[in-house]
């Protein structure tokens, strides 16, 4: 077994040093009825690299990749180009195979990158501070809801009709367990501002999204004002981090907490995970934040260094009184994010955002030119919803047959809500003009 360095002689010698007769001596605390004889049945024995790679390769070959042809699926995860440098950096042994930086003297590499990550996220969202990441955007959203209840000592959160339904569901799961009331507004393509009407004196926070799951970008300032008037918080969500290169960021709209998905920067699609949850807030709420925080300090010689800090919020110190049970962060995915962001810089990010927006504008123009298509999203960044005559599932299946993965049927996210004829499609810098033409041509055929 190539991963096990002990030889049979080593094992014998070590047992002798210990004074044990056999390995079984160490397992005598196991109740006799539960001791397994022999090896577990029903599983194969060990295999070499070649055999394993073939097995996994055969599974991989059954999937259609996003790079194989025209591809327009978004709704919370986006196909972007990741620079080769990023994957090289995250495979550095010293980053890949280290633990949480609990011993800062020998973890400054991880800690400094986390400090830079927090600084980048705060800048990107135009918020004052950010944490060292959450599991993903949806769990960050759930944590934000709970944090808002802690801050305001209220027990009600209101979710917009454009909040990604998976984010809403994850938030509902966490809130319901803690007796927090969740008010879900009806799905709406351009309905974020309805949050302003829904806030009352019991509301801890309203949660709005821009761009929302239908792609609509909204200035949430009126929602922030309405929330603040009732002493409630605005949680502003985004699932496409690249959008913040040109659309109005949470901090400019008066958000108290900003949460979102960072996958778009540096991380591949990975069929849904691992991703990286971004979490930022105002400085006065800093001590109520969940998750890890990295802070600046000095060492015994007076040199600048970084440490994990404010850990009295966390489960390993506070146990049942912790702000969250979260223990890990998104680790390597934060490194991928921060490395890609460093390569982009402000200039590259703005440029990338513009390319995404232009691809989506060209796609919208092309699809609007197809007879029967009705564009539904009034203002968008790189994603929009449109109506087609007929069932979106059928249409997407036929498009698939023509080599075009045309987007997400809205009814997959909103079953039974009368959105059966709605498709949500995204375009990115990876979308070529030929892809767009292929989509429009295929749609003409399918709808004919």
């Amino acid at each position, binding site marked *: 077994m190539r991963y096990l360095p002990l030889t049979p002689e080593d094992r014998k010698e070590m047992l002798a040093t210990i004074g044990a007769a056999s390995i079984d001596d160490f397992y005598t605390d196991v109740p006799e009825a539960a001791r397994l004889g022999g090896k577990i049945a029903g599983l194969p024995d060990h295999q070499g690299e070649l055999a394993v790679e073939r097995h996994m390769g055969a*599974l991989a070959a059954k999937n259609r990749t996003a790079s194989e042809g025209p591809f327009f699926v978004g709704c919370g995860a986006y196909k972007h180009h990741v620079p080769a440098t990023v994957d090289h950096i995250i495979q550095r042994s010293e980053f890949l195979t280290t633990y949480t930086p609990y011993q800062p003297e020998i973890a400054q590499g991880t800690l400094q990158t986390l400090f830079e990550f927090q600084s980048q996220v705060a800048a990107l969202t135009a918020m004052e501070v950010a944490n060292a990441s959450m599991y993903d955007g949806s769990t960050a959203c759930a944590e934000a809801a709970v944090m808002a209840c802690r801050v305001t000592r209220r027990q009600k959160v209101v979710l917009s009709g454009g909040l990604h339904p998976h984010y809403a569901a994850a938030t509902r799961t966490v809130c319901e367990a803690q007796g927090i009331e969740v008010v879900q507004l009806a799905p709406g393509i351009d309905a974020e501002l309805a949050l302003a009407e829904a806030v009352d004196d019991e509301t801890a926070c309203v949660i709005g999204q821009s761009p929302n799951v239908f792609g609509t970008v909204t200035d949430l300032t009126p929602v922030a004002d309405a929330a603040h008037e009732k002493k409630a918080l605005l949680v502003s969500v985004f699932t496409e981090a690249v959008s913040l290169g040109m659309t109005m960021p949470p901090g400019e709209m008066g958000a108290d907490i900003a949460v979102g998905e960072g996958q778009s920067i540096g991380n591949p699609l*990975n069929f849904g995970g691992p991703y990286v949850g971004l979490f930022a807030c105002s400085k006065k709420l800093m001590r109520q934040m969940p998750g890890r925080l990295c802070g600046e300090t000095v060492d015994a010689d007076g040199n600048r260094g970084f440490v994990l800090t404010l850990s009295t919020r966390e489960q390993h110190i506070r146990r049942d009184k912790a702000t969250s049970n979260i223990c890990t962060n998104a680790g390597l995915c934060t490194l991928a994010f921060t490395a890609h962001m460093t390569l982009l810089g402000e200039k590259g990010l703005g440029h990338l955002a513009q390319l995404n927006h232009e691809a989506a504008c060209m796609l919208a123009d092309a699809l609007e030119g197809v007879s029967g298509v009705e564009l539904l999203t009034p203002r968008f960044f790189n994603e929009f919803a449109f109506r087609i005559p007929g069932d979106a599932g059928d249409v997407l299946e036929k498009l698939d047959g023509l080599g075009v993965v045309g987007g997400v049927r809205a009814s997959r996210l909103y079953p039974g809500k009368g959105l059966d004829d709605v498709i949500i499609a995204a375009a990115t810098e990876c979308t070529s003009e030929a892809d767009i033409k292929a989509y429009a041509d295929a749609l003409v055929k399918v709808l004919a």
Partner: protein
Amino acid sequence: MSMNSQGRPTSPSAPSAPPAIETVSGSRGLQQREDLIFETGSTTKTGVDLPTPKGGMDRLGGVTRKKSVGLPGLSEPEAVRHYVRLSQQNYAIDLGLFPLGSCTMKHNPRLNEKVARMPGFADIHPLQPQSTVQGALELIDQLATWLKTLTGMPAVAMSPKAGAHGEFCGMMAIRGALMARGEIETRTRVLVPASAHGTNPATAVQCGFTVDEIKADARGRVDMEDLKSKLVDSSDIAGIMLTNPNTCGLFETDIREIADLIHEAGGYFYCDGANFNAIVGRVRPGDLGVDAMHINLHKTFSTPHGGGGPGAGPTVLSEALADFAPVPFVVEEDGVYHLVEQRSGEGSDAFGRLCAFHGQMGMFTRALTYMLSHGADGLKQAAEDAVLNANYLQSRLKKVMTPAFDGYCMHEALFSDAFTAEGIETLDIAKAMIDEGYHPMTMYFPLVVHGAMLIEPTETESKAELDRFCESLLSIAEKAKAGDESLKGAPYLAPKRRLDETQAARKPELRWSEPDKIAAE
């Protein structure tokens, strides 16, 4: 002195004590100084070349960013150097033994990394039509089969994103079952041993339960008398959260009786599976009366820790809890896989959704690769070698250090600070290990042992490496016993000296800001 053909000396001149060298650059030999990107980069510089935008297209409706972002950029060579220099300030398993107890820092096979990057896994979208991702769904199903078989449990929820998220999943399933029984209002108390990971009590509270702490006995196990006294009135018992093997590195000898007592009381048994790596192939949690248990793929099944994540925490469930598993889950029918994504039909008893999409696919590919590589025989051998290595360390180290409990351990050896001289603490020993070229052990955990030092070598260390480690740690332990004050200043040889954590917490600086802006504050 001998000379080579160019007339240069081939051996160093007579040794002398090194002078205290201050360098102009701030670097020290291979230890390169590296500033923040905010100090070295520029908002006008970029390390990517993108096509020129066409211009003239705007469908944002005026919802645009008003102020500049303030993000520095670096060219590719500068960025590569930045991160490589920073990486060299990190300790890692690939550099040496990483004996962090309870964290299972084992070798991360590189085949796993290669497989996870196959485009068929890395470049597929979670909302693609299911007909185009049959291989991905099949992979999830295969991994689920391995996990169910190894644990002897009938069901598994695959979407939890980390260990603590798996705990949340398991406790929510228990909550779901209690709701179905109409007892969620009355059954609110969860028993948690004092030695538990901090995530356990935090999770119980997050699920709306209250925590009742059980004592440990003199053997480092659950105090059965204390447990029984907590069950005298059991009408409000929701369950117990117990780690096994526990955080003292010991197998809970009374685990079957504990399971029976909890079940008789009408509660459920949540097992924290963080230490499953000690017993894979030797014991199945399903045979111990467990109702729910998360499995840290990043511990037992070698997915990389990555400096703190990402993890993955699939959670196996008993027959009693299986129906309450969250959505989504994979179902196979006549060789076709489909995802149940809604709480209706097959998923109608689900407690809901834990997160967006279907779980940590990138970790699933690595974990399954690891399992296939080891096979049933290799996984069992790995568990046994982990336990053998820990007992070997324990037997060698106890010559100077004080074992917290008598007898053999499982996969990790626990010591108290009883052997140290007045004034020398566990922290000092840990920091001295850094100078010896090792990552310190877990310190001050579990809380039930004074000055705890928890050492987990894992199975991927050779005997020679263990011997070298013992020599280093024993020499430090001797110094600690003798009250050697030099330990208080350690580490001396690390990239940084001891860092001031108090200052960091008192005046938190969580992001970079312009120096003049700091002065103005």
